[in-house]
């Protein structure tokens, strides 16, 4: 009986230590989701391009390239 009590106490201690270890390895992290920007450009020349990138500038560069490339 005494042996069983010791075994239970040991198991409880071990599992607590285990959880503590897991918590230590996974601290709270602030996650920022980067919203992608989209620019759609229809130049009236037979195509329409929609560019998506991290910034409006890059998205516009992608879409704008479509106007020049189509007519060249």
């Amino acid at each position, binding site marked *: 009986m005494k042996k069983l009590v010791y075994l239970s106490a040991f198991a409880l201690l071990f599992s607590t230590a285990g959880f503590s270890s897991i918590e230590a390895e996974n601290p709270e992290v602030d996650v920022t989701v980067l919203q992608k920007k989209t620019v759609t450009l*229809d130049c009236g*020349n*037979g*195509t*329409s*391009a929609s560019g998506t990138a991290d910034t409006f500038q*890059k998205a516009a560069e*992608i879409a704008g390239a479509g106007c020049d490339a189509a007519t060249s």
Partner: protein
Amino acid sequence: MNIRFVLTLLVFCLNFSLFSQNNEGYIKYTAYSGKSSVASPPNENGYPYEYIIQEGTLYFNPKSSVYQQLQNKYVTRVQTDSDGNYEKTEVPRDNWDPIGWVYLKDKSNNYILSRVTYFNRSSYVNVKEDLEKISWNITNEKKNIGDYNCTKATATYKGRNWVVWFTPKIPFQVGPWKLYGLPGAILEAYSENLDFMFKLKELKIPAEIPSEKFEFPVEEENMLSLEEYLKTNQQKKDKYLKYMETVARENDGSVNIKFYPEIEK
């Protein structure tokens, strides 16, 4: 003797001239081509939401007909972004072409000469093809267009289902674009999904048409076959898509391209 001969010749020439003039005319159409692009998606019925609207003129006589559709001098540019901004502007077309699209149907020699653009609606190319017979289904449906009682006809042609309204009152087998072959002039035509429409704007019969209107407006050299044209058009589209994917990668982004509907598939 000589005087009588000259007079007879003069009378013949005068009659022939009058006959020719009475057998010539023109029909002006308002031509609509749907955009159905990323910036202008189809409406809730699946039909184009926005159209490019141009003017086309069909010149005809008993031997041939020429349909010419002029480019607009301005193009409509639409820019939207994911913040909800919307800007629509009219900008002058850089490479405006004074001739535009031309389709010459020569019934005597059984061919069509076309001056058309690739998908970009900018670079022109000349195409020669056989005048293919269109299998029309003439219905009993009638409606009036202007002063003319018209009959409805349908056909599948060049990859699209066409609905047209023609009038036997104008006994010429002519129509806009490459459409022809009905017992009367086509006054209205549209593809079933409304990507393309031609509506009567004005007509004059008889009319005095300058002879050069019945000539192909550019030299008939470097003619492509229809197959070559369609193949090159597809190659140009593929090249364009690849280029745009490269531009997107260089900007750590992605791109979605949509081509306008093309009248011929």
